């Protein structure tokens, strides 16, 4: 099986096979990479079809596709041009949702407050518009990345994606 590997959108020349070893170090994610006699501890985590590779202080996002074609599933593919998904920035407990469906919001308006590990975080609207739908209620637990609200914006939305 062959893979196409991309970093920052650019395909990488996959240095293959010879002299490259990946020795298990700890658990499912930590390895010792041996390249031409050099040893480097790495952590490889699979997440939403990407590989997140941590080396020293650096984290590198590696896009992966099987060379045998298969449908791409970019995270913003389903984002309508005139609608934003407001996602939970971390897993946690919804403390309040100070807006309701139909209400107008500004860019930066607080849509919800989420709490985890005793830290509270404001989840804000990425743009001005109206709340189309609320999908999270106070007291509810949300997963990281879970859609909490949909915001409909008037027109010509910039290609910015949801709040991070």
């Amino acid at each position: 099986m062959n893979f196409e590997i991309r970093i920052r959108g650019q395909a990488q020349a996959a240095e293959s096979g010879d002299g490259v070893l990946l020795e298990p170090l700890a658990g499912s994610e930590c390895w010792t990479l041996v390249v031409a006699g050099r040893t480097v501890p790495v952590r490889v985590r699979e997440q939403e079809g990407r590989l997140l590779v941590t080396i020293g202080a650096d984290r590198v996002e590696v896009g992966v596709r099987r060379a045998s074609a298969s449908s791409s599933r970019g995270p913003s593919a389903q984002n309508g041009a005139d609608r934003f998904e407001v996602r939970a920035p971390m897993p946690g407990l919804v403390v309040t949702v100070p807006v309701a469906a139909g209400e107008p919001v500004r860019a930066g308006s607080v849509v919800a407050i989420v709490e985890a590990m005793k830290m509270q975080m404001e989840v804000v609207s990425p743009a001005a518009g109206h709340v189309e739908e609320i999908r999270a209620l106070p007291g509810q637990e949300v997963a990281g990345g879970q859609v909490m609200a949909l915001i409909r914006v008037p027109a010509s939305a910039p290609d910015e994606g949801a709040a991070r």
Partner: protein
Amino acid sequence: MPLPRRLLVANRGEIAVRILRACRDLGIETVAVHAPVDAGAPHVCLADRALPLPGDSPAEGYLNRAALVEIASRCGAGAIHPGYGFLSENPSFAAACEAAGIAFVGPPASVLRMCGDKAEARAAVEAAGVPVLPGSGPVDDAEVRRAAEAVGFPLLIKAVGGGGGKGIHLVRSPDDLPGALRLARGEAQTAFGDPRVYLERWVERPRHVEVQVLADAHGGVVHLGERACSVQRRHQKLIEEAPAPGVSPRVREALLESAVRVARALRYRNAGTVEFLLDGDAFFFIEVNARLQVEHPVTEMITGTDIVAAQIAVAGGAPVPFSQEDVRPAGWAIECRISAEDPHGGFLPSLGRIDGVIEPQGPGIRVDSGFRTGCVVSRHYDPLLSKVVAWGRDRSEAIARMRRALAEYAISGVDTTIPFHRWAIEQPAFLRGTYDVRFAEDWDGAAPSQEAERLAAVAASAWLRRRAAAQPRDGHGAGPASRWIAVAREEGIR
């Protein structure tokens, strides 16, 4: 003065483990308590006895004052150590312990009340002639604007009942005041059960230096030197070291003397930390942390003392077990806090099951961990997993050993702050020892080096090849022994 025969640890995670170890070393029998999700947790396994807390909630049990006192009485524990967080600075818990004839390992209720009321403590310290920052008393929503104008912007909103960086918010302009106030009150309520907040002048680029003190009921006050804690993010400390770099002998002397003065002014008892902000050579008292600090090991490493053991002795009525002359700091120690947070994703909590770990070892390295393979990191608790402390004869040896320890540390299953620390200790400002509290703002997790990208591509393709090769094995690759382990690990989660 006899030590208690048995001690209950009213906490969990790394600090519970730390306290249990001190008790073991003193020959004190230990009782751990645990929420349902913590059965089988490291602090449970290291205790002599382990008892469940009432209720199903992960956190509430550790805050259940009546239940804790009742369990301690029932099993004959003569003392309770609250650790940090949870009930550690709660005056009514301290009072309830004393009322039940149980030694509370911390300051008496009256001192906790005084230190817990940050505004009152400020006033007492100011009266003792130690400089403080301009600030307000507790403010309500109506008067906050006026109080803020009096203190001046930028300012901090801090929890009256607070500590540990929780509930602190920086406000740069009057417009941001209402939103920050709402968040700060919410966090203060959650963390400390007290929504009151006060205001304090914000110094643009101060350094954070604190002094460890130990005081007994006989008027004895000893300091154990200072710690530098300026590597912070959102008012949470990330790296601490002792001694503090870049502090002149004259300023250090004044800080240590002031800390002892503060302890005396507040009639302090047990272990405590007097926190100061340094602005150039000027310094200002900010607060007393009336508990064991997360970062106490750096002080232990340079003084050879056991602060927890001293706490227990003092709580039993003994004098501080060493004199000021006995405290002869040697070498340098640095601590990195390893938390389950994603430093490349805004330090958001990273939850999951840890399925493998290799911890650093060897000369000069101490690791205090509160987790192990099989543990689940949930949103219910503080994200601190462990603390790595490196000691060296001088600062550069301590840094070199920390570099080595961070390179060795491998945790599988959650993101951690290890990459941040690897970055931090290589920065010129850190290496020079001239960093201030804004230091961590320069972290930019989004820009990997070219070399890292090249290696990541190699690692990714090796990983993919490896997985492709492993997949056909499904169903018969793992023998019965392996399967048995997997089952055991799954069951270890609870």
